[in-house]
Each structure stands twice: as C-alpha cells, then as structure tokens.
C-alpha cells in the first residue's frame, strides 16, 4: 500500500511575528515546526505500516527550501521518502493552487491513501485536504479519530461530525484528514533523526507536473492579501478590588453589568 502524506511547515505558536511597515508582508521569527495536526497523519501511517506488509510512506510539502526540515521530521518519525515541491513561483496563499499542485503530484506518484492534518495551525483554513480529494476525484473524510484498514482496498474510519461521531466505510483510494485523538504521535528516536539527516530529498518543480501552469502561477491566485494589521489591543486589565471574594465578585458583576454591559 502506498500512503502519501501532505504536510505543512508552520511558524511555531511562540514565534514572534512582525508586520512590516508597508503592511504587505510579515517577518516571522525563525522557529518552525511540522503542523501539529500533520503529526497524527504521519503517526497513523506508521501504525498501518507496522501492522501490514509492503507499505510505503511518502511525505511531501509545498514550500521554500526551509520546509525540508519538516520533511526530515517526518522521515525521523519513520516515513520512507520525502519530496519538496518548490513553492517559489506558485500562488502559495491560494488553497486552490496548492491543492492543484499537490493533487497533480499525487497523481504522478500514485497512492492508495492520502493523509493530511485537518487544518494548518497558521491559517486555520482546513481547505487543502478536501480540495485535493475533489481534484483527484476521490472521497475524503474530515477529522478522523479512528482508522482501521479492513483489507488492502477499504478502510473503516470514525470522524468528528456535528455533535458526535460518524462511522464511514470507504473504498480506497481516498483521502483522510487527521484530528487530535486519532493517536499519540511518537517522538523520533535518535536513529530516525540520523537517518533523516542523511536522507536526500528531491525537489520537484511544479512546472514538470501535469497541471495547467497558468492556473497555479503566483499571478493566478484567486485570493490576494490586501494588507496585514495588528489585532486591536485590549486595554490593560482592570484588576477588581476588594478585601474578600464576596466584595470582588460584587464589584466584578457591577463592572460586567454597567461598564461591559454583558450581563
């Protein structure tokens, strides 16, 4: 079974982010990780590999050369191979372009199953998985919490639905997005890290893939970021005065009623 995983390198939640003077670009502190939800995808693929014969795990991402670090993390966790899709000329802010490129790469490499995180924690968009599945003409199930490979051709999954869980039986090939709760991602062993350091990671130029190039070029982006701005700052906290919990609560309720007008 060929398992393909789409991952994304994202700024660490602690990374400092500065909006540049022109409000058109950002300066992001050099602290990056593999997207939190993608770790569940890599872990699930590893569990399938450990339980079944002839499983190959391929990871890929679109990004700059820097994104190789996230691919190496996936190899350290146990992925067999990794590819970097060069995003320098592509409309990387546009989920449509990203999913076109990823699906074209998937078609070229071949796959039985695609896994990716339910959303990226930098833009919270949750678009690329379902969009790539649409371009590939395969089913998808979002936010899976449990997966069982029934045989080489089908899987049974449980996923998060509104107000509960859904249980789906899906014929492969199919795409699944992974949610926290699916598994506990492993911490790479030192041998894995060594292997990852040495792994050669080919760079793929999206221009070599079978996609209408004009549809994925930077200037074809369907979305344009007009400007970045800082969030509105909250005024400094008002610490509620009082000698006793009773007094403090009384003053808080008064403030919530009369100043904030939320009670």
């Amino acid at each position: 079974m060929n398992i393909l995983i789409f991952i994304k390198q994202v700024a660490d939640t602690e990374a400092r982010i500065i909006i540049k003077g022109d409000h058109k670009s950002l300066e992001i502190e050099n602290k990056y990780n593999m997207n939190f939800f993608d770790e569940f995808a890599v872990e699930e693929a590893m569990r399938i590999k450990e339980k079944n014969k002839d499983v190959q795990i391929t990871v890929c991402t679109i990004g700059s050369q820097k994104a190789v670090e996230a691919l190496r993390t996936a190899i350290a966790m146990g992925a067999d191979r990794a590819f970097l899709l060069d995003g320098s000329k592509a409309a990387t802010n546009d989920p449509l372009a990203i999913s076109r490129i990823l699906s074209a790469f998937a078609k070229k490499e071949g796959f039985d199953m695609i896994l990716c995180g339910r959303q990226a924690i930098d833009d919270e968009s949750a678009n690329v998985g379902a969009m790539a599945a649409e371009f590939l003409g395969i089913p998808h199930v979002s936010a899976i919490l449990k997966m069982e490979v029934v045989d080489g051709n089908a899987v049974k999954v449980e996923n998060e639905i509104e107000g509960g869980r859904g249980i789906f039986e899906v014929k492969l090939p199919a795409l699944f997005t992974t949610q926290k709760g699916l598994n506990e991602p492993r911490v790479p062993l030192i041998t894995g890290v060594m292997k990852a350091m040495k792994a050669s990671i080919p760079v793929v130029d999206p221009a070599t893939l079978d996609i209408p190039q004009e549809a994925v070029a930077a200037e074809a982006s369907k979305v344009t970021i007009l400007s970045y701005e800082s969030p509105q700052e909250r005024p400094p906290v008002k610490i509620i005065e009082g000698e006793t919990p009773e007094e403090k609560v009384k003053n808080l309720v008064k403030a919530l009623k009369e100043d904030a007008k939320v009670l």
Partner: protein
Amino acid sequence: MAKDIFVFVELKEGAVRKVSLELLSKGKEIAGHFSSSLYAVLIGHNVKGIAATVQPYSDKVIVIDNEGLAEYRWDTYASVLEGILRKYNPYAVLGGSTVTGKDLFPRLAARFGSAIVSDAVGIDFHDSGIKIKKPLFGGKVISWITCSEDSAIFITFRPNSFGIEKGSLNGEVIEEQFEAAKDPKMNLAGTEKHVSEKVDLQEADFIICGGRGMKGPEHFQVLEEIAGIMGGRVGASRAVVDSKWREYEDQVGKSGKTVSPKLYIGCGISGALHHTMGMDTSKVIVAINKDPNAPIFHYADYGIVDDAFAVLPVLREALKKTREEI
C-alpha cells in the same frame, strides 16, 4: 450582473443554527449595499417547516427537501448545492466555519475553481466588491483578503462573528429539486450523537473555562452550574483535556476550538499562548487566578486575583441573582 449573496443554512437537530442567522443578518447588509438579493439555502429532509424561521431574514429561501439529504454528507450536499449554484450563479456563498462548513465548502470551491476564504471573522466593501477579514497565526496578525470574482466566492465565518439583527423580511420560498448524488465509494455506516442539552461550544455566548488550577475533574461541577445559569458552556485548557479531566470537545485553544463568546471567564488558567489563541477574540474576558503574574491577565479585561475555589461559589450565587432580575 446582480451580486446575489447566498447563505448555506446549517441545521442542528432540526433547528436553524445561530451562526446561520448571524450570516443572514450580515448577508442582508451586503446584499443591500449591492442592491442584490439575499438567498437562504435550506437543504435536508422534512425541512419545509423550517423555512419560516429564515424567511424573516432573507429575500428568498431556496428549499431542497429530499430523503437522501436527511444526514449530512459532503457528497450529497455538494451535488445539490452545485446544482443550485450553477442555476443561480451567486456572487458569494457564506457558511459557518463549523465541522460541516469546513468539510463541505472546500469541496465545492474546488469543483467551481473558486476563491475560498475560511475561518473569517469580518467582511467589508472594497472597490466594487468585498474584502474579507481573517486572523492568522492564532490571532497575532489580522489579514484583509480580496478574491477573484470570476466564479462564486466561498467564505466560511467563525460563529459569533456577527450579531443577529431582527428580521423584518418575508422571503419568498422557492422549492427546487436537484439530485443528491452519493459517492458509491463511501458508505455512512452509522453515527453516534451525544444526546446533549449543551450549547455548541463555538456558538455559546458565555464560556467559563477551567485550567489546571482547578486541581481535578470534580471541581468542574461549579463551572457546570455557572454555565447552566448563564445558558453557556464549560470549556477547558489543553492541560485539563490531556489529564482526561474533560473531553476533547471542550478544549479551547490552538489544538482545540476557537471561540469568541460575548463573555469568557477563565478560572485557574495560566494563559499559555496555546490557550489564548483560541479565545482572544472573545468580546469580554475575565480571568480568575491567584497568581497576579499569570499571563492570562495580559489578555483579560477584568481580573480577580484570588483563589478560584473561594471566588466561584460566590460568583455562582451572584450570577444566579442577575438572572433572576431579568
């Protein structure tokens, strides 16, 4: 061409979700600006009776009532919506950034080759069109985005992004029929729904969150009581969920749910970035923590520096009194 606005109406247990009424309220304002029409799109089984709920908020209500749409699946819903959108050709389609919205909208946007912006929190006019407000990096940056208008723009919004205006319209109901095509490779074998009286965490107007400072699952009872009084929900920090004191569905923060209630109260929560990124768009934030240096106070409007265990029972009684006054 008229810039008609469509709102995908989400239902929960046979009732219209609050987020859909928020989007209809905002949609009316947008359609008003463009002198176009606002359509509510109501899809499901036995939903004709629900049309009356959205009629006051819409110029037109498109209803597709079909047995095959009883249970939400992206394949059937996308096939029906595709039919509607091809027929009516709207300017923009709005939906909630909910479990369903996140599953359905990207599939449709790819099918139409359209611009999609998800998890947005605001919208405004720009040139002859619109611009969309979307937080990035857990709210550290706000971006404004414009979209290519050559096909319908798909946008999902966080619940609680807009207020609900009192509806004074009486939208004409249009019944349509489109095939609800199932993907034969995907079989819904069943669903397990929690039978829960609880308000949806993302839609709640009031959230009281407990952190590790609550010391154990048994101490969440008082939070439940307060949430009950306020008609809201109890949330939890990651540490609490990881310690299995609360279910994952209660988790507020980066790897949990992003919430923006009218009033958020954090109890015994230190305020790790991970958590604050999921709640810092709340309208009013109250923090209760005995450590005056806890980072949560940087995000709060009001703070009580005291032991949560001493404050909470008093707060419960005080809030109960405010409810009784109404």
